[in-house]
Each structure stands twice: as C-alpha cells, then as structure tokens.
C-alpha cells in the first residue's frame, strides 16, 4: 500500500455514518424480534405478574376511592391500570441488559464490536425492541382491565398517549440497564443494581396510591421521578378532561431523559472495550 492510496483513503468520507445507523438498528431489532418469536411464552410470561397485581390490588383496594381526599376518580381499577402498565414497563426494562450479558457470554458482542456495526444502533435497537415488547404487553393489560370493568374516558387518543409514555419509560430504563450490563458484565450485579433503582422509584410515585394521600415529601420527591412522569402522563391522558400541559410536559421530560440515557449508555461501550 503506497502513501498515495493511504491519502486517498483518508480523504474518503467516513463510510456514510447516518444511513448505516438506521439500517443497523432495523437489522438488530429484527434479530431480537426473531428470538422473541421463537420463545413466545417469554412475552406472555412477563404479563402474568402485572395482571395478578391488577386483579389483586383492583379487588383489595376498591374502597380506596372512598377515602376523603382521594383525587383519582371514583373507580380504583381505572386509577390503577395506568400505574400497573408503567410498573410493568419499569420492571421489564430493568432486565433489558440481560440480552447484552448473553451476547457478551456468547461472543456475539465482540463480533459486533469488531465489525462496522454502529454502536448507536446496538443501543437503540434494544430500546426499540423493549419498547415494542412493552407495547404488546400494555395492550394485554388494557384489555384485561377493560374486561374487569374499567372504562377510559380519554378514548383511543388517551390510550395512544399512555402507550407512548410506557414505551419512552421502557426505552430510558432499558438504556440504564444496558449501561449497567456493559459496566458490570454480570447478570447478578445487573439485577441487583436494577432493583436498587426501580423499587424505590415505584413507591415514590402515584402508581398505586394518590400521592395527595401520602406524606408531603413523597409528593415532592415524586415530581423528580421519571417513573412518576410516565404515570402522570398516562393517567391524565386516559381521564375525561386531561390537563394537556401536564401530559405534554411530562412526555417531553421523559423524551429528554430517554435521549440522555441512551447517549450515556452508548458511551459505556468504550468502558467495556477498555477493560477487554
């Protein structure tokens, strides 16, 4: 190779970075959908627990709505459903990094990293896949809630916004889980970190209980909780007269939060490679 051809190669544009990001995202998302389609039980399994919560809590706490000061309407199941959808999204995405751990153990990760595969696509494809999983599972939960008697005044538009919020929530916490996987490289550590984060977030929110009934500080802290943003956006949108400023405001916050986490998590590939 002469110096001249070297120069020519340097001058060539860096192998069209943008288009390959989208194509790579599509190919890698399809790979994960293929794997899910081969084990469909997996998708359904993840919905069983949320459904149990929905029916159990829905039955146990029907009279919560009668507590003076409860501002979440007069049907607890209707209040609960968006909370359960978001809890499912949160806990499901905490496991997202597992597929990275598997890829590391199987050598697939190293192969991708030594090929021109876009790092951004490796990250975003898993977020898209997890979000699609949440979409399917959320529809199942909504269907069961409807059978249980819940009626949502927000209609189709409200449901679409709830789904969007659930998918954004999934994407953001999947990115976090992926980053933890890249840094820890260990399934047990990953699960430990995830639970450390997700459980407190769930309780510091209005997913199960109207925060106006909790201690003041809970409501205060919940305002900074991304999980709460998703719950509020979803619940408002399903209501009869949504506060649109609140809905779009919280969705916007979630979108920014997701973008930042996805970017940070993509940077974690560097750390992974440094310790390889």
């Amino acid at each position: 190779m002469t110096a001249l051809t070297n120069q020519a190669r340097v001058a060539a544009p860096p192998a069209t970075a943008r288009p390959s990001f989208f194509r790579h995202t599509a190919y890698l998302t399809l790979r994960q959908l293929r794997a899910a389609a081969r084990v469909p039980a997996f998708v359904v399994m993840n919905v069983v627990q949320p459904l149990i919560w929905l029916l159990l809590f829905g039955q146990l706490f029907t009279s919560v709505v009668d507590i003076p000061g409860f501002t979440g309407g007069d049907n607890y199941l209707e209040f609960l459903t968006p909370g359960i959808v978001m809890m499912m999204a949160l806990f499901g995405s905490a496991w997202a990094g597992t597929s990275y751990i598997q890829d590391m153990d199987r050598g697939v990760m190293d192969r991708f990293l030594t090929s021109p595969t876009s790092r951004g696509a490796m990250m975003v494809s898993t977020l898209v896949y997890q979000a699609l999983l949440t979409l399917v599972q959320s529809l199942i939960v909504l269907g069961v809630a409807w059978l249980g008697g819940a009626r949502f005044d927000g209609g189709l538009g409200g449901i679409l916004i709830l789904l969007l919020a659930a998918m954004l929530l999934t994407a953001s916490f999947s990115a976090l889980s992926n980053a933890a996987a890249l840094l820890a490289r260990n399934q047990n550590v990953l699960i430990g970190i995830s639970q450390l984060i997700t459980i407190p977030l769930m309780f510091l929110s209005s997913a199960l209980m109207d925060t106006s009934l909790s201690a003041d500080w809970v409501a205060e802290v919940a305002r900074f909780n991304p999980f709460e943003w998703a719950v509020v956006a979803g619940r408002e949108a399903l209501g009869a007269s949504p506060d649109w400023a609140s809905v779009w405001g919280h969705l916007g916050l979630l979108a920014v939060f997701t973008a930042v986490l996805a970017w940070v998590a993509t940077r974690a590939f560097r750390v992974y490679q440094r310790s390889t």
Partner: protein
Amino acid sequence: MAASSDGMALVAADLVKTYSQGRGTPPLRALDGLTFQTEEGTVFGLLGPNGAGKSTTVKILSTLARPDSGTAMVAGIDVGRHPGRARSAIGFVAQKQVSDPMDTGVENLVLAGQLHGMSTRAARSRAGELLERFALTSAARRQVKTYSGGMARKLDVAIGLMHRPQVLFLDEPTTGLDPEARAEMWAEIERMSREERMTVLLTTHYLEEADRLASRLAIVDAGRVVTEGTPEQLKSELRGDAVVIELHEASVISRVLESLGRLGGFRDAAAEGRAVRARADDGGAALPLLLAALDAEGIAVASATVSRPSLDDVYLAHTGHSFAAVHAGSSADARTELEEVAS
C-alpha cells in the same frame, strides 16, 4: 516505521497491554512490547503457551481491545486512530464461539453481511456459497444451538468471511474439530490466502497446523515474540539434523563416541542407553561417512536414523518446555527458562 510498514498487511509495534487484577495485586502484563509484521496475502502463525498473549494480540489488532502503548495497523490503517475503517477491512473469528445460538446458520451469516453494508440479496447469495463451502448447507436453517461444536466453529469462520475481508483473524480455528474437518479447514485457509490474496493471522496450539499453513510464524511467550521466521528458518536455526545410532551392545559406545569426534561435523554427541545421539549440519551426508568408519572398526550397528528438527524442537528450544509439558505445567517456569535461553 511508516516506510518499513509499506506492503505490510499487519503491523504490531511494541504493543503493551496490562490488565488490572484488583486491589493489592500488581497489574498483569499480558503484552510486553510485542512486535511483528505480516506481508499481504500470507498466513502468519502465532504460537505460544497458554496465557502467552496471543488472543490479546488478536483483540488489539481487531480493534476490540486498546493497548496501553504501541501501534497496531491492519491493511495500512492505524487501528487506534481509525478503528471504524479498520473494522471494514477485517474478519474476526474469536477463540470462543461468535455466532448467535438463537439464530439459524443463514440468519447469522446474512446479518453479518448486512452489518458490513451488503444488500440483503448479496448477503443471501454469499451465505449460500459459504454454507456450501463449509458443508453446512443441510444445517443452514437450523438454530445454531443445535449444531455440534465443529459445525459451530465452521460457521464462525464463515461469518468472518462474509464480507471478503482483506485481513482475517483466526484465533484457534481448529480447536475442537475432528481430523477430517481440520484437514478441510486447512485446505480452505490455504485456498483463501492463495486465491483471494487474503492475509490471515492464525493462532494455534497445533504445531503441525502452523508448519503446514503459515509462511511465517512467531513464537510468543510472556507477552513477547521470542523468535520469528519461516518454519524452515526456525528449524534450521536449531542447526542440524538429529542423528541417532542404535547399537547391539552398550560396551562399544565409548568407541563410537571416539569415532564421532575423529570424523568431525557432529556436535552434541551423547549416549542414551544403547544409542548414541548427535547433531549434524547435513545429516544425510554425514551418516554414510559415520557408518563406513564404524564398519571399518568392526562395530555392528542395529539401526541408524536421521531426522530433520521438527517445529516441536523449535518450540522446546524457545519456550523451555516441550509442547506437551507446557500444556500440563505452569507457564511461570517456562518464563525463567526462556530468560536463560535468551541470555
């Protein structure tokens, strides 16, 4: 450096890589100034005991790991400065399996092609071609988790070849293959470097494999190249063929040793039971003279053999252990003996 690396498909210059081993222990020096170059279109072999640093070298050259210091270049591209461009030029077959067990053989291949920018159609037809070449066509639509170890290994190599890389890294590609599959793999590697002018970096624990495939090889120990050259060079550096004379009775041994001394041309003569071993630069020419001399003295010879030094002898000389012993024992004492050899 730039001038001398022209026409070199692979350059590793002074690579140093340390791994931290946790608090309280000093970092492990996996590579300690490792240096070698490979010409385009050749097969270069890396040999060495477990933990010598072969896989670490492959990981650095293939952009997966970053060296602490030193330069790595593939196909004229500096791996540290332009990893993205280097990745388009290389194929990577790691020591462990790299295919996705949940996907089928075809799906693995097509995805690899697509990620390298091939159209789906081109990737499909290339995948079909490679499956055929590696005798995997009948298993193409099965999930890889149902493959035998050998089948999965062949698929790994096929994945590395999808985009017709300029440089292919094969980290122990034939470990776990049966003799027939190994011979097929050898033929395929030879064909690729010959017909497609592909440069191959091959690490292996099979000396026979290195001898047959590699046009040049380096023996690595404790993160450094301890010797490098063509297999023939390395063997002839040992200076001389092994000559073994077996006698009917041990009593004549001292007379045989005297004859050897008188004749000249023999070195390192030593008795071993009823046999005498020595080295000679040209064993084929020296042996008849020796036999004639012994005959003249009336000494009866039971058998006489001349053998060229094997790569195993070379490995032994440079790492201080025979190949089998290295694999059984630790590499720590291999290192001290190596230093003795070097000094």
